């Protein structure tokens, strides 16, 4: 058990740090019309230096490196807040790997490099209004028409669809078979006629997600990923990558509320002197350290060529609930003042209020607490799956909602 770098790791880290210092500085000197253009420029810079998609082969634009190198670069890059941007996470974390796994060579040649460079952005279009936790309950239909398919339906919770160029979309091609067996995956051009992208108004008032409507959208059969009616397995491949893509920092943490507690008055001196607060802080710290150290274990597994399993589900359960608790504890500690969410007045520019309003979404997005516990129970502990009343029923015969 060793936190220290090996000599090779230390060397890689030193190189990465030097590169970052030079290049972040250079990048910061440039002027860009908007954050997306800025993020694309940084991604292109990293690609040229072999620091984008570090574990991917060089022939695809990657770095040809090891998982540990990828982790090391990530740790170092995280120290430069000016270059943090999530525009490419879903595309490079989930969609493009799926394209690489299931598309023909010409498609890969066409799309992988531009995606790595940030020239093109990808979205994932699986969720539907009637679906939610039950991802396979997909109603968006694709009907064969010569060499094409005609797609009609609606997707929801699509992050970044408004700035994306392409997407992978899971659709129903057969309603006569049980629901998992009638799905097919395609890649699509999000600028295709008949696609309408509308932002979802979240409870916080912000819009990080979209609804995507398909009206007679024509998709060539050549854009199919995997076999007809074999899309569920492709989707599982995509989702397996989701757990690796998600995680990490999600908002305020124990260190932030510790800082707040040094200054905020409690019932007797600063809040940090209050043992009731200290006890909660200790528990948060234990969980946050637990997650950090669990990630270190996952990285160790990666570095040994193992795939971290569904046990990484514990990360989001803990992080999302903790975010809600810490956010709420902070505003409650502010007393009556806690209701004020004006960033000019609220501590940490309202970051604790943002946490309270975002955490409910984090507890749901990418698998609810309940679904993740099922995953742990079934895939890690080997307990029986839920009793399924829908497994052997044709999709068209299922009760409302699929």
């Amino acid at each position, binding site marked *: 058990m060793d936190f220290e770098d090996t000599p090779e790791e230390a060397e890689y880290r030193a190189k990465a740090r030097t590169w970052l210092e030079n290049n972040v500085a250079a990048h910061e000197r440039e002027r860009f019309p908007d954050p997306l253009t800025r993020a694309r420029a940084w991604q292109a810079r990293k690609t040229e230096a072999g620091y984008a998609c570090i574990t991917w082969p060089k022939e695809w634009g990657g770095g040809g490196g090891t998982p540990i190198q990828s982790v090391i670069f990530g740790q170092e890059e995280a120290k430069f807040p000016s270059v943090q941007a999530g525009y490419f996470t879903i595309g490079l974390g989930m969609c493009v790997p799926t394209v690489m796994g299931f598309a023909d060579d010409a498609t890969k040649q066409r799309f992988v490099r531009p995606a790595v460079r940030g020239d093109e952005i990808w979205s994932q279009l699986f969720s539907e209004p009637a679906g939610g936790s039950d991802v396979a309950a997909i109603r968006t239909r694709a009907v064969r028409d010569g060499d094409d398919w005609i797609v009609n339906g609606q997707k929801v919770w699509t992050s970044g669809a408004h700035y994306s160029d392409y997407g992978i979309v899971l659709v129903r091609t057969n309603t006569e078979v049980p629901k998992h067996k009638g799905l097919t995956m395609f890649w699509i051009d999000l600028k295709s006629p008949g696609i309408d992208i509308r932002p979802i108004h979240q409870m916080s008032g912000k819009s990080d997600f979209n609804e995507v409507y398909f009206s007679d959208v024509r998709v060539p059969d050549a854009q199919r990923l995997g076999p007809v009616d074999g899309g569920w397995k492709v989707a599982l491949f995509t989702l397996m990558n989701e757990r690796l893509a998600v995680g990490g920092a999600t908002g305020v943490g124990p260190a932030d509320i510790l800082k707040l507690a040094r200054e905020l*008055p*409690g019932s007797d001196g600063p809040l940090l002197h209050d043992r009731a607060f200290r006890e909660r802080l200790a528990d948060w710290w234990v969980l946050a350290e637990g997650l950090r150290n669990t990630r270190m274990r996952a990285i160790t597994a990666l570095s040994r060529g193992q795939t971290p399993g569904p046990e990484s589900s514990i990360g989001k359960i803990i992080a999302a609930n903790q975010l809600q608790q810490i956010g709420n504890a902070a505003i409650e500690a502010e*007393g*009556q003042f806690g209701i*004020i969410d004006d960033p000019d007045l609220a501590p940490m520019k309202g970051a604790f209020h943002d946490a309270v309003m975002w955490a*409910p979404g984090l507890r*749901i997005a990418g698998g609810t607490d*309940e679904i993740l516990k099922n995953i742990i129970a079934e895939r890690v502990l080997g307990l029986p799956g*839920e009793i399924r009343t829908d497994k052997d029923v044709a999709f068209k015969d299922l*009760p409302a909602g699929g």
Partner: protein
Amino acid sequence: MNFDYSDEQKFLKEEARKFLAAKCGADRVRAVLEGDHAYDAELWREVAAQGWLGAAIPEAHGGLGLGHVELCAIAEELGRACAPIPFASTVYFVAEALMRFGSEAQQAKWLPKIAAGEVIGAFATSEGPGPVGAVKTRVTGGKLTGTKIPVTDGDVADLIVALADDGLYLVERGEGVVAEALSTLDPTRSAAKLTFTDAPAERLGDEGGHTAMQAVFDRAAVLLAFEQLGGADRCLEMAKDYALQRHAFGRVIAGYQAIKHKLADIYVKNEVARSNAYYGAWALNSGAAELPLAAAIARVAASEAFWFAAKENIQTHGGVGFTWEYDCHLFYRRSRQLALVAGAPAEWRERLVGQLETRNAA
């Protein structure tokens, strides 16, 4: 022994529910959430016309003189409806402060106007983040100077009960009072920063500052507990209704044990909150010496229940619960507003134990 609403009180409560179902649907709450108005003025007039503002105000002062249990029943329904009106500030805080500390003249002057809906009240105590500690607001020569932030309904209040270092004061909107509206977590309830500069102020009662404030908080806490309970019940209902019609994996999600037990957990907390709120109502209504303890118990239970119900209602809804269009967040926001408006739960836990110490020492 009778530990429930009486039949008359139940009737009043049912009528209130019907009235609010008709007059205060989610559309009316959203109109305040999304619009420019601090509250729903039409609803306010209608509520006044029902006599609710004066439910616990003696008939001699223009109220219905019913009593506090009746007011609790109304509060429960207002909470369930997430009503966007300055009811709590005006009735639970200011009217209660006047009834507890006001001279006959002060009561005669203000209570009839409150009962008639002509005067909106606000209770101004906080001066910044954290529990209300040393008070900087001072009164000299009948002029009050200081800054209060936040003051719920401070932007629309006609009559402010303000905490100064030596006690409570009545201040009317106008001379020496500047209100700036604040952005808050719950825009269905407005709040403001009030800056007082030599504002004419009249002493209310002779209790010292914190003691007087706490006496008002105790009374308000019981009434707020019923609003919180109503909100928590509504969240449970919403979660149940949604779970009974939402399908996943071929059956309604209400059939999954994780959802069943989640809703059972909400139910348990709500029932604890209800029973403790009833105890608080009894203590408030009968003027029992246990009021400070009963109020703390009721408030802690109700704050916990509403928060839990509001957040797990969203969770039960899944993705749609997180959207602006669904009503879950109205109650989530309101649960935060109500939990903080009379001081945070931690302060009440401390007060609860303090009361236990006093009681056992006696």
